[in-house]
Each structure stands twice: as C-alpha cells, then as structure tokens.
C-alpha cells in the first residue's frame, strides 16, 4: 500500500483475473505465522454472521419477516477483517447489505432480529428495518439503501475525524454497483484533495442486482477508479480473511498516520439472490454454473480447514461454534418475537429533535 499507485502494472488496474474465476482459491487459507487467536475469533464471528443470515433468510421465506433483506451469506470475511482494526471513535457506514457489517462490529443479535421485525427494541428502534441499521456504540453510524449514498457521508465523517485530529477514521462500505453512481467519484476526489482519513472498502461481488459487472462496466476490477483519483489501493480475495485482514491493517495504519484515504477492493460473491433467501441461480450471466463453484471459495470453510490443519482448532470445537452460533441466533429471534412494536407516537416523534 505504501507504493505509489503509478508504479503498478497497468493491466492490474482493470482485470480481476483469477480472483474472478470461481474455480480458484478453494483451498484452506495460508495462516500467518505467530498467534492465531484472533483467527479463532474471526471464525466465530463469521459463523455467527452466517447463522444469523441463514435464520433471517428462513424467516423471510416463511413470511415472518416482511422487510426486504439483502443477505451477506458468502461475504462474511471483509466485514470481519475490517472490524479487527476499528477503534472507539471510528465511524463506519454501510448500505443495503450490511447485516454482516453490523454483526462483525459486535452489534447485538437481538437488536438485528428485532429491527428486521420492526420492533421497538431494534437497532433503529424498529423505524428502519434491515436496510437501516445503527449501532453508535460500536461505531456503525448508519446504513441506508440508496446506492452510494453513504459514501460522501463517510467522507464527511472523515473530515470530522481530521478536524478532531485524534487519529480516528471513517470507513465506507459499498458494492461494485455503487461505483457507477457519480457520487462515488465525487467522494473519492474530495477525500483525495482534502487528504481525509477515509477507508473506502468496495465489496466487489460481481453483481449489481441481476446484472454482472461485465454488463455494466468496461472492466471487472474497480481499483482503476482509485487509481484515477490518486488514492492508493489494494485488491484482495475477499473470501480470504487472512489476506483481507493484512491489507486492512496496512491501509488503516497509513490512514491513521495522516497519509490520506485508502481504497480496498475485496472480491467476493453472494450466495443468495440480490434480495431475499432464494439463490436466484436463474439470474444473470453464468450465475448458474458459477454459484456452485463459488461455494467452493467459502470464506468460513477455508479458514476452518486451515485452523484444523494447524491443530489450532478441533472438529469438535468447530461443531460447537456452529451450535453455539445457531443457539444464540435462535434465542435472539425468539426474544425479538416477544418484543413490542414502536408506539404510534414515534411516527411523529422521530422526525425532529423535540423541545425540552
């Protein structure tokens, strides 16, 4: 990341290459040397996210959840890798597919379940649903579904962090589709010219709704935009939590030390449809063939295998993590079902700050 963008080889700027090849990177991860304690934690978090998303998907299918839910199954790694570097005072912003961002930061399961049910105990007090999540305590300053909308907002949080001068930063999560919104480019330029502590994290899952990136853009890697706006970038296998965490660490160090914004492209894939629980393997270019192969690049299984091979984890412990996660998710769901809906007054009481 220290390297100036312009010493990169030009083809790097445009081609995902192997990263876009669903048959690649199925093997167990290569673990970093030294203590892997955090990887056990990362594994637990990814399993928790997977379990939560699977339950939410089931409940949408059963009609128990009515708000639109965009599931992050298959995309658990980037959120977990980023969360590792977050400190108190940092501010993160997401979009429509942000359950993983919320949970990776430590957001309450009960708060998520209650929110998708529209309950007063939800992360947004039941006023936002799946697409509007808030968790100030853990730094999640807001997720909203207008594509690209939180990118400039994160830049503003970065401006505030720079003015505060306390080493804080802003993180903007967005997808490959969001790079087609003009505001994405305006935001990168603004962050670059003001040298703001902003971490742009693009989860490139190759799709925007039903359209593959090849049908929307002249090249499948989006780092070329960071290059154009002179923002140092890195591109990683977004289903490799080890590699992603390494790239995040380098980027965040540079950002906190006042070197300005950084950009990360994490290449990944969603296992479910754009919205809801179905796999939608009938939608979009070669999704039918690709989906099965992409499941071979499962970020959870690849980490688990590595930890098992390394003897850092036993099959039993792995099973236990899954059981524990499913139990916690079930419990949160059951609890949220009992929670109250927001009072009628909230409809008018949440619009403006009330006088004392």
């Amino acid at each position, binding site marked *: 990341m220290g390297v100036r963008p312009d010493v990169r080889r030009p083809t790097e700027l445009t081609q995902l290459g192997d990263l876009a090849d669903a048959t690649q990177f199925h093997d167990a991860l290569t673990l970093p040397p030294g203590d892997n304690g955090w990887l056990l934690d990362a594994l637990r978090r990814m399993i928790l996210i997977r379990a939560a998303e699977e339950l939410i998907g089931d409940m949408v299918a059963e009609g128990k959840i*009515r*708000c*639109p839910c965009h599931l992050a199954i298959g995309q658990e790694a980037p959120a977990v890798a980023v969360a590792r570097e977050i400190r108190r005072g940092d501010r993160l912003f997401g979009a429509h597919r942000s359950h993983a961002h919320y949970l990776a930061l430590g957001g309450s399961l009960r708060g998520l379940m209650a929110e998708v049910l*529209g*309950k007063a105990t939800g992360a947004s007090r*039941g*006023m*936002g*649903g799946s*697409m*509007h999540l808030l968790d100030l305590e853990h730094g999640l300053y807001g997720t*909203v*579904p*207008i*594509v*690209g909308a939180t990118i400039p907002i994160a830049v503003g949080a970065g401006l505030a962090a720079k003015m505060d001068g306390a080493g804080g930063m802003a993180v903007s999560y967005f997808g490959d*589709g*969001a790079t*087609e*919104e*003009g505001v994405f480019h305006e935001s990168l330029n603004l962050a670059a010219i003001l040298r703001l502590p902003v971490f742009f994290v693009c989860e490139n899952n190759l799709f*925007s*709704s*039903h*359209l593959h990136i090849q*049908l*929307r*853009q002249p090249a499948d890697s989006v780092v070329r935009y960071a290059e154009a706006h002179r923002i140092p970038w890195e591109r990683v296998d977004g289903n490799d939590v080890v590699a992603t965490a390494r790239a995040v660490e380098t980027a965040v160090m540079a950002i906190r030390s006042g070197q300005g914004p950084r950009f990360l492209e994490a290449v990944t894939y969603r296992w479910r449809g754009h919205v809801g629980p179905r796999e939608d393997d009938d*939608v*979009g270019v070669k999704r039918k063939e690709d989906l099965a192969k992409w499941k071979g690049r499962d970020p959870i299984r690849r980490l688990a295998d590595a930890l098992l091979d390394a003897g850092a984890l036993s099959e039993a412990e792995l099973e236990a993590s899954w059981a524990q996660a499913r139990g916690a998710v079930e419990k949160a769901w059951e609890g949220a079902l009992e929670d109250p*809906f*927001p009072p*009628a007054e*909230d*409809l*008018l009481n*949440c*619009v403006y700050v009330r006088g004392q």
Partner: protein
Amino acid sequence: MTVGYGAAIRDGFEHLMVKYPKVFTIGQGLWSPWYVGNSMTDLDRQFGRERVIDTPVSELACTGAALGAALSGYRPIMIHPRVDFMLLAVDQLVTQAAKWRFMFGGQVAVPVTVRAIINRGGEQGAQHSQALHAWFAHIPGLRVVMPATAADARDLLIASVLCDDPVLYLDDRWLYGVEEELGPPVELDLRQLGPRVVRAGDRITLVGAGYTAYLCRQAADQLHAAGVESEVVDLRVLNPLDHRVVAESVRKTGHLLVVDGDWSTCGLAGEVIAGVVERVEPVALRARPVRITLPDAPAPTSGPLERMYYPTVDALVHRALRLVGVQEDAG
C-alpha cells in the same frame, strides 16, 4: 377482456414499440424486471436488448442520455423503478428537460417520457416510498401524468410517449392488480386530457390522483350505502393542472375532500383546494374544504406504523360523513 393495471402498462409499451421504431426504453432492471412487477415482462426478448436497455446504477446520466436521444429524433422511455432513485436525476428532469424547449426559444421539441414507479409499503421504509408528484407538478415545462385505472395506465403511457413535450408518468405499484375490461389501445392527445368526473354525485366532491383516486371510488360506494352521493374526480394529469372540473363539481356539492398519497405542505391536496377557492365564491362552500394526506413524517418500516401511515377507505368515509354532517352509528 379484463386486464390488470400492471399488464395494461405492458400493453402500452407493446403498442408503442410495435408501431413506432423510434420508441425505445432504458433503465435499471429491464432485463430482469422484478423491480417493475409485471409491467415490462419479457419486453427485452420481444423487442431486443438494443431497444430495451438495462443500465448501470447511474440515474443522472441515464436520464440525461434519454433527453439527448429525444433531441436526436427518438422517443425514449426512461424507467426509474422508484421515485426515490429518480431524485438523483432531478437536474436532468427539471433543470434540463423541462426547460430545454424554452431556453432555446421553442425551436426544439423534447419528446422524452420518464416513467417512475411509486412503490409504498412492504416495510421498505423512508427511502423506497416517496411519491413527490407535487414536486414535479410544480415545474413549468414538465407534464405530469398519474393513471388510476388500467385503461389510463395503458393509454396515458401511449399519450405520454407520443407527446412532443417531456412527460413524467407516475404509476402506482399498489394498483397493479386492479383489473378492468379493456378495449384496444387508443392514441390520445395528452394536451387534451385532464381531470375527469368518474362518478357523479351532488353531496360531496372527492378528489384523488392515482391510487388515491382508486380509494375515492371505493369510498364513494360506501358513502352511497350510507345515503351520501359523492362526485369523484380523478385528476389524471397533474401538470398543467386544470382546476375547472373540480371547481365545477364543488359549485354543485359545496363540499370538498381531497385525498393525496403524498405529504401535505405545498402538496397536491392543498393545490386542489386553493384552485377551487380561487374560483368558487365563498358562499358556495357549505363547509371548510378538507385534505387527507400522509402524516408529516417519512415512511416507517414497522408494520403497525406502516398501516397507520397510509390513507384508507375507512378514513375517507368517516371524514366525508363528518364533513357533510352525517352521524355515523356507533356500531
């Protein structure tokens, strides 16, 4: 045969694209149009992906491109699956398309149609539920159309595309299932179309547009059962807005209830009331006019709040009865 509102929109597209080679459509989701319900199904297969263009997530540029194609001899139909997304394209719609002809002294026509879908409810919340037709009705140079029936959904789309001015066509997802007997498509001159009395009555005038016009008709049935004959006006064309039909009706009934699925302040309901009282002598009004609109809040997601948020037929009926001074039995 009976056709639903959503299917009727598709019939309109088909009529236009079969008969007029210069018509094409562009927007998000057109190659997998779950966004737009059943209103554009398989148009890409039928007419080819050169005339049914799916796009990147770039509302502003796509809308500008539609305008550019319209200046170049085509009749594009720009699709925004939600009004909310279209707000990113307001500059092209309002500052460019609506003013283009005027800025150049009337030397060019701008036959672009922008279709946006009002899609409320479904616990989608504040950013996927805005209507904002009042905004666009406010803009000179932009014709605004809001069909309430399957026939209008089809024929006003055709009229919009055949019109030489920029037109914003706003259809309502909540009407897609409403069916009616339809004859063959007709080609109407949008400049000749406007508000229409869709039910005659003498006791109270109910006014709505799009989905709320549909609510008014249902309310009228219940009011009839309660012995109150209401006259229902479906506005249909919001800009330029012709106030005469409503004013005429109120001169007769003396009671005015306007229902709108948008916010109140500087909204359509207030405009209709103002347009009436500018024209009708105060003495002709038997009571103060009333408007029913959304509450002054963004759309909530939580089911119970969402159900409170939107106007209902019952609310209309109660308010109408109170307005004309009929007691409802406690039952």
